[in-house]
């Protein structure tokens, strides 16, 4: 349809362009014709002017001849005397005069014959020049000129102005008639008759007599007669031809003809009125008269312009159509994607929901079987968590696709992030019995300024995938490196996760970042996943201006490398140095060993590396025997033969019972804590080994003050708190109030925002420690309620900490909450740990 419309538009354009061009061509043609008419008119007028000049000249020449004749007639002269008279009075060397007896057509010339000095005799007997002589008018009545003829005395082509004179008849007595000829060479006339060169450069003219014979012939005029010339190169038919010849001899006008070169010419003619039947003729190629090219230039320019316009229009339309087609395709794809998305989401949501509903039903029917109920509840919890992950991912991908995924940078500790990462991965690592290592390399800058939440999400996503898709007994190793960044004020964090998992096919590698893409593999199908993780991760990495790279090979494993340039926070840990301390560190991972030695060195601790437990034992023994015991010994738990615990045991038994020993592990060490302590370990430190962690543990062991405070499982600090919960949903109220009560926290409910506001307005200082505020509530929502509370006159009430507790989990929702004056945001479903953490944070801030 759009193509059809385009065709119509193009056709309309072409039609319009053609119409304009036709108009311009017609107008130009009209102008050209008008111009041509004007030129022809001008040409004819120029010829008429020439005729006047010619007439004047001829009259002048005739006048001289008349004067001679008048004088001769007035005297009684013989032919010889008349000739002698003219010879005596005529000084012009170019011209001559002949006096000819009309009977014999012989006579005398004023100039001698060529190559002779004495022969003045001249004869016209063999020339048909005079005819009966009747054409010679009486003296002074007209111009009498012969045609061009050959002067018999000198052979030159000449004209003669004639008069009839009376001379003495010496033989018979009395008078006899004679012709007086004033002879002018044609070459003389040709020099005088020249068209205005500036206008008519190539035009020539001729004079013809009443028979069409040339009196004077221009170069381009052919034949001996103009009429012959015309007939030779033009075949108009006898009637037209005769009419034309008649017109030429009877008036002024113009006509077209072809010359000897086949050129179309315009011929103009006008009678020389002072003569009897002579006509002045001029012929010029039409191209010369019509040499106006401006109109064609105009047409050319307009044509080019219109064509350009058409092409530009066409290109523009083509471009717009192309964009529209792309947009249509995108819209179609988006529509399809939406359908696919809904279909996939429906499936992915229904699957855990099916588990939850089904297991709940089973649990209800087995209320008496505590073990079965506990198992069902555990599975329900797993399904719920998966559902929550799915919803979170959906929210994230939705935000990514809508471009609303914003970053909320904060100052955070990369150490905490890594610790959190390790902690989170431990259960799965342990469950799948995976060989796990996490190495950091000289993390100089602990505090960074970035969106910690998103960074966590990125790192966790990659690591959890590695663990998920690595078969039991496999290996997952993580390397986190800090390098100098090209960006000022930033460090380059390189996060590399390598696994020996199932790997990915090249085909899947190409589309792995597309939402809901999961490898088609029977092994993968048994692993829970939304297929959104990598898509979200990539978007987030790109949002943080980082890169994500992947190398993978089926059956061999996958390596993801994420590189991010993150700004360094203004605030850094105070200088952590423990000088004059010598340590030994043992680990079978040479890279970890090297980086740990570096980290310790940066703290001022000299550390000797040992690759095995046996080597460590030997080194410790030597130092002990030399009386230079290490100040601290750091041993990896999972070293091969002997492992860390066994090494500790042997140190304590064979060498030194008092040297402080730290046990390191990338695994959850809660299971071995008891065993390690029994062997003689003084403390535990999780891998990777950060400077802050090492400083804290070593300081503690050496009796120095530790800066960090370990979290504690003691919740007594929370007991006695009273929290106002604005929640319209009964179940949610029940859940949160029950959860809080587990920690000795009391709570009161406000069913909506208005009630919450009223309660706060009425409350006395200390009635509530904080408010958990739902956002979407009837009568008054949480945001408006907060605004009201913040405006209360009671300063305590107006400044009470308010934490949003809502299912509105987007970042903009969080920002909106903070903007109206809330102090924090907890997304539903609530994570109890997070709730406690927030409560504690508020409590701390109160201090």
């Amino acid at each position, binding site marked *: 349809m759009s193509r059809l419309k385009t065709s119509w538009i193009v056709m309309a354009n072409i039609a319009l362009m053609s119409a304009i061009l036709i108009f311009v061509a017609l107008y130009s043609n009209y102008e050209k014709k008008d111009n041509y008419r004007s030129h022809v008119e001008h040409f004819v007028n120029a010829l008429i002017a020439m005729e006047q000049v010619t007439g004047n000249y001829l009259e002048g020449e005739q006048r001289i001849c008349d004067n001679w004749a008048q004088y001769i007639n007035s005297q009684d002269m013989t032919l010889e005397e008349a000739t002698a008279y003219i010879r005596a009075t005529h000084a012009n060397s170019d011209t001559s005069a002949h006096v000819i007896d009309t009977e014999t057509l012989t006579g005398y010339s004023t100039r001698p*014959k*060529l*190559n002779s000095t004495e022969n003045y005799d001249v004869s016209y007997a*063999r*020339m048909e*020049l005079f005819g009966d002589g009747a054409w010679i008018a009486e003296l002074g009545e007209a111009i009498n000129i012969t045609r061009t*003829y*050959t002067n*018999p*005395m*000198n*052979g*030159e*082509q000449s004209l003669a102005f004639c008069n009839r004179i009376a001379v003495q008849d010496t033989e018979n007595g009395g008078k006899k008639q004679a012709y007086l000829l004033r002879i002018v060479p044609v*070459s003389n006339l040709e020099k005088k008759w020249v068209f205005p060169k500036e206008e008519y450069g190539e035009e020539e003219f001729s004079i013809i007599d009443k028979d069409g014979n040339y009196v004077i012939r221009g*170069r381009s005029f*052919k*034949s*001996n*007669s103009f009429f*012959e*010339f015309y*007939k*030779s*190169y033009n*075949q108009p*038919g*006898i009637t037209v031809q005769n009419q034309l010849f008649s017109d030429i001899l009877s008036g002024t006008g113009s006509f077209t003809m072809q010359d*000897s*070169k086949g050129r179309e010419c315009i011929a103009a003619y006008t009678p020389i009125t002072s003569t009897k039947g002579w006509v002045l003729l001029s012929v010029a190629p039409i191209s010369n008269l019509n040499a106006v090219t401006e109109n064609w230039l105009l047409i050319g320019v307009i044509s080019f312009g219109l064509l350009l316009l058409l092409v530009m229009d066409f290109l523009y339309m083509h471009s717009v159509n192309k964009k529209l087609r792309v947009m249509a395709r995108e819209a179609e794809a988006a529509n399809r994607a939406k359908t696919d998305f809904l279909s996939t989401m429906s499936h992915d949501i229904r699957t855990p929901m099916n588990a939850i509903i089904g297991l709940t039903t089973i649990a209800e029917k087995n209320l008496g079987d505590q073990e079965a109920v506990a198992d069902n509840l555990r599975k329900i919890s797993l399904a719920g968590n998966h559902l929550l992950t799915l919803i979170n991912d959906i929210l994230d991908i939705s935000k990514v696709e809508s471009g609303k995924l914003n970053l909320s940078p904060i100052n955070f500790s990369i150490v905490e992030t890594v610790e959190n990462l390790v902690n989170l991965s431990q259960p799965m690592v342990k469950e799948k019995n995976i060989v796990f290592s996490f190495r950091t390399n000289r993390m100089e800058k602990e505090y960074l300024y970035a969106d910690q939440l998103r960074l966590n999400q990125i790192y966790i996503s990659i690591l959890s995938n590695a663990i998920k898709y690595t078969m039991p007994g496999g290996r997952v190793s993580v390397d986190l490196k800090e390098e100098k960044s090209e960006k000022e004020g930033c460090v380059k964090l390189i996060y590399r996760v390598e696994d020996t998992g199932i790997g990915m096919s090249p085909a899947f590698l190409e589309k792995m970042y597309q939402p809901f893409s999961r490898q088609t593999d029977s092994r993968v199908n048994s692993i829970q996943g939304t297929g959104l993780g990598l898509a979200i991760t990539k978007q987030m990495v790109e949002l943080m201006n980082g890169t994500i790279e992947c190398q993978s090979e089926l059956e061999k494993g996958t390596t993801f490398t994420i590189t991010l340039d993150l700004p360094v926070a203004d605030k850094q840990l105070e200088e952590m140095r423990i000088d004059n301390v010598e340590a030994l560190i043992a680990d079978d991972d040479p890279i970890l060993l090297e980086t740990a030695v570096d980290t310790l060195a940066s703290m001022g601790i000299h550390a000797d590396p040992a690759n095995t437990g046996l080597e460590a034992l030997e080194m410790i023994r030597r130092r002990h025997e030399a009386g230079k015991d290490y100040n601290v010994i750091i041993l990896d738990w999972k070293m091969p033969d002997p492992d860390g615990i066994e090494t500790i045991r042997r140190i304590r038994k064979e060498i030194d019972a008092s040297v402080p020993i730290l046990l390191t592990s990338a695994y959850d060490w809660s299971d071995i804590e008891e065993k390690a302590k029994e062997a003689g370990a003084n403390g535990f430190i999780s891998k990777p080994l950060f400077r802050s962690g090492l400083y804290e543990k070593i300081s503690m062991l050496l009796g120095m003050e530790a800066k960090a405070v370990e979290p504690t499982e003691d919740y007594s600090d929370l007991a006695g708190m009273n929290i106002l919960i604005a929640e319209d949903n009964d179940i949610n109220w029940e859940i949160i109030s029950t959860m809080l009560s587990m920690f000795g926290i009391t709570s009161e409910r406000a069913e909506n925002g208005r009630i919450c506001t009223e309660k706060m307005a009425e409350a006395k200082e200390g009635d509530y420690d904080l408010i958990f505020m739902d956002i979407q509530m009837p009568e008054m929502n949480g945001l408006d309620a907060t605004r009201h509370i913040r405006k209360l006159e009671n300063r305590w009430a107006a400044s009470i900490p308010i934490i949003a507790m809502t299912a509105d989990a987007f970042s903009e929702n969080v920002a909106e909450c903070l903007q109206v004056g809330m102090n924090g945001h907890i997304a539903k479903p609530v994570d109890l740990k997070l709730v406690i953490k927030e409560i504690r944070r508020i409590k701390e801030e109160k201090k």
Partner: protein
Amino acid sequence: MKKVFCIILSALFAVVSVTCACQARAESAGAFQPRLDTDTSCEITVVGSYSNFEALEAEFDSFNEIYPNVELTYLKPDDYENLLGIVLESSNPPNIFFSFPWMYGNDKYLTAFAHMEDLSDPQLGLDLACIRPNLLRYDADGQLLTVPVFARNYGMLVNNDLFEKEGLQVPTTWEELLAVCEAFLSKGYASPMMGYSAGPSSCLMSILVYPEVVAALADDPEALQAANEMNPAAGECMRTSLESMMQLIESGYINLEKCNEISDNYTQVILRFFEGDVPMMICTGDTVSGTGKRESQSEAFSRHPFTYSFTPIPLSEDGGYFIDSPSIEFSVNKTCDNLDMTNEFMRFLISREELNRMALVKRLVTPTKDLSFSAVYEPFGRVPDERVLCPETIGITDALFVQVRNAAYQVGTGAAGIDEVISQYGSLK
């Protein structure tokens, strides 16, 4: 793919066009290679006895394509035969002038001969080999002072369509001629053969008789000498041909009453032939030259055009003769201005192509060896060599021709009998 194909085709077309253009230019250039600076600016004048010479003017135009700044003009001086000498001596002498076979041996033209350049000079580069050798006349010193540009011959214009219409063949022998004339006569044609008969100049009688007389004298040097010496005894050489002529007239094959209606020996002869009812019109090649231009001037021919050709008149059993004689010759005035360019023009003109082209335009017999290019004169190209006779080569003088012409005219018009004119040979007026 289409686009690529179109581009390749366009490129090929362009290459072929350019190649062809270059080839055409090369071929064109190969025809005549100028020896002088083509920007040379000068004037060249040719004078002659023709009133109009469009064929030569067409050559001027062709030459101007090579030498655009050379101004060439053709002029006909009055009283050419008498004033040629003085024209050559004038202050504006012509570069090239007409010369004629009859000028040889005439003292009146000594001045003219004194001005003639030797055109046999190889340096001039004229293609003399293209001209029929009989027509080239070298003087005693081996100089070639005149070069023929047209030839003259005698014959009859044949209306081919009329022959075809009546189912007749153009005659090639005397018997066939009589049979054809009889056939036309029987079909109601008032005068199967016609010609100008109102005066002796170019009259049909002389055209009929002269070739036979030339043939008779060609093989009889003594008779030729006697004839040239105007010896009455030589008059016998005319008898056979005069008798043949009279047979045609007396048989009614040539109706003199009808012929006398033709008022001149040129235009009217042509226009009468174009009326379309004359199977054979006896005339000279000079008359044939006017046919082309007059086709459009004849209303009858315009209405009913027909094909025609010029053939020898078969007045003997072996057919007719091709009396091959120079009609117009060109001579170069060696004292003229711009002699180099004049010779360059002659080099351009004296070539098979240009002479044939000029003959075609003028519709005269070409002096070149190739007669096949002209449909009108093509029959003369088929005349066997032994029947091609050149009066000038044989040694026939102009005076001899005049005697024959007068004899034929007088006998034909009945002014005198055959025996009478034979006996008066040498003094026939």
